[in-house]
């Protein structure tokens, strides 16, 4: 078990190297004029060259890469051309917002999706099942940013129930930094009114983001439950008089959930990168918004940094899922 963990963590090293190479290739080998964009349209040739030199962009690609990797080993992700701040510091300030959003969305998706999938499997081919299948297809097909706009229109602009965007109003002091999740930090600080305010800000983006994973998890849970219900051991359990509820909890939920776990792991990583649009709609100061701004101005260091951080979190999340899978499924063993 320990050996398995160590081996998996060692495997992160080639992932990091590979990720940086790919992102570097995109950043440096494709056409584009980041210096020109950063320096502004009125900059002189001399100013541009100075900027390029300051950021090492005049050197050959492999040299830039070597510098980057050397920095990376000390936790340095380079500097942003646009903000001129260290990327690592930027990411550290934006990451908690994105994580808070993703965790909230994932929590909604799992808490609602898993039981709903199980229920629709039990109600298979009756009207609640059909209805939820149709709703699920709709939820998967709904563009997140359009849904975000609709939610804003209804709840923030017409009904005035929820704030339009952001994490907190400017006038509210954020609670002292502990986890970076404002809702959690507010609770830790015992500041209940800030917690409610933060929760209200979180509600719409989290719902907009959760809809598609919710529907996918529900469909996955449904189909794997149906698959498990057709297994021979369920027939044996029925033939030997086990009560329905016991069969559901023992045989179906357990085996079906282990299949759903894999989807949850994949979705977690997908959501991390997929917050971009939702963050844009709700002005949520997260990694996605940060990356978008950087990408539009071809400021590549932040983009590489964001891709690297999200990639690593994705790999770690899948490692956790594998571990959980092993706990549920005794056949998967770690040497």
């Amino acid at each position, binding site marked *: 078990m320990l050996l398995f963990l160590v081996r998996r963590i060692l495997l992160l090293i*080639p*992932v990091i190297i*590979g*990720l940086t190479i*790919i*992102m570097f290739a*995109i*950043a440096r080998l*494709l*056409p*584009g004029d980041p210096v020109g964009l950063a320096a502004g349209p009125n900059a002189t040739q001399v100013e541009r060259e100075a900027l390029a030199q300051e950021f090492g962009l005049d050197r050959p690609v492999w040299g830039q890469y070597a510098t980057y990797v050397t920095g990376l080993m000390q936790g340095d992700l380079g500097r942003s051309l646009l903000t001129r701040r260290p990327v690592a510091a930027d990411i550290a300030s934006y990451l908690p917002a994105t994580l808070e959003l993703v965790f909230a969305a994932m929590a909604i998706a799992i808490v609602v999706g898993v039981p709903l999938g199980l229920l629709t499997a039990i109600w298979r081919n009756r009207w609640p099942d059909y209805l939820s*299948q*149709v709703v699920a*297809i*709709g939820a*998967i*097909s*709904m*563009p997140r*940013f*359009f849904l975000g*706009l*609709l939610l*804003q*229109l209804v709840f923030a*602009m*017409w009904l005035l129930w929820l704030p339009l965007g952001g994490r907190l109003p400017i006038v509210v002091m954020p609670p002292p930094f502990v986890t970076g999740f404002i809702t959690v930090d507010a609770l830790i600080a015992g500041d209940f009114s800030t917690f409610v305010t933060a929760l209200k800000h979180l509600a719409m983006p989290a719902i907009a983001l959760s809809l598609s994973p919710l529907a996918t998890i529900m*469909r*996955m849970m449904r*189909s*794997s439950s149906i698959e498990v219900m057709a297994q*021979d051991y369920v*027939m044996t359990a029925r033939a030997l008089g086990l009560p329905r509820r016991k069969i559901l909890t023992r045989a179906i939920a357990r085996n079906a959930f282990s*299949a759903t776990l894999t989807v949850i792991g994949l979705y977690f*990583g*997908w959501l*991390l*990168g*997929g917050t*971009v*649009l939702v963050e*844009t*709609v709700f002005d949520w100061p997260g990694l*996605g918004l940060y*990356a*978008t701004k950087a*990408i*539009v101005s*071809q400021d*590549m260091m932040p*983009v590489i940094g*964001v*891709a690297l951080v*999200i*990639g690593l979190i*994705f*790999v770690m999340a899948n490692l956790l899922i594998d571990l959980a899978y092993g706990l549920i499924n005794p056949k998967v063993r770690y040497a």
Partner: protein
Amino acid sequence: MSDVADISMPHAEAAPRREGLARGWFRFRQSRLSMVGAALTFVVLFFAVFGMMLAPYPEHVAGGIETGLRFLPPSWAHPFGTNELGQDVLSLTMAGTTVSVLAGFGVVLIGTLIGTVMGGIAGFAGGWLDEILMRFTDLTLTIPSLILAMAIAAALGPGFENMVLAISLSWWPGYARLVRGEVIGAREEVYVTAARAIGASPTRVLFRHILPNCVSPIIVKMSLDMGFAILTVAGLGFIGIGVRPPTPEWGTMLSNARSYMPDIWWTAMAPGTAMFLTVVGFNLLGDGLRDILDPKGRR
């Protein structure tokens, strides 16, 4: 439980099951949702081809501006109102179908092509080649696809082709993994062993015996992916990377509409709904196809 398997063909020895096109079509038609999906897809394809021609205000589609008609609410002349340039939203939305559908097709086709080649080689060759190709695939999968597509699109510069290429380059790993899995599964089939025992060459085994049996799941994934590819195209447009105006595009239209919310809310409705219905159509169609072509992959 041997006879349970026989329930589906109670006359196993007598009249073997007829699993032909007729039966598949019958099952497809049985599912009302699949039919809705097929109908929606047909409408979308129809507008993709004829949308520009049928648009009530073709001059707006071409980029014409009528500042006097800005922000008209929905009316008989403009069922979805007009936008900040006085253009008819319905016309733009109809014409926007072309870009979305073409881009979606392009992404899925290129993605499938790259993915099938990578996955096919990896699965068939096995060994170190498989190892290298799949490590690379997994690596690409760890990079958030939307950010990857955005980065490539931004670096390549604006334009339709660049956008399609950028999304495709973040799209293929899913196909590579699917095809590899299918090829490895098919490689273990007895009829493949039979072909090898006859002395068939590796190329023959791959192209005659393995790949034809992997086609169904690929087609199913393609039809399911069409919707998501269209969503991604619109997403890039929404962020402002993608097709440049005046070419009408749903994501860009939504992004513009957002600036004038909530008072001018109607400009967002037509492109948003069009996007939603298009994706619903392709998803329903894909679900229906999966049920008849690839019942094993039902999830």
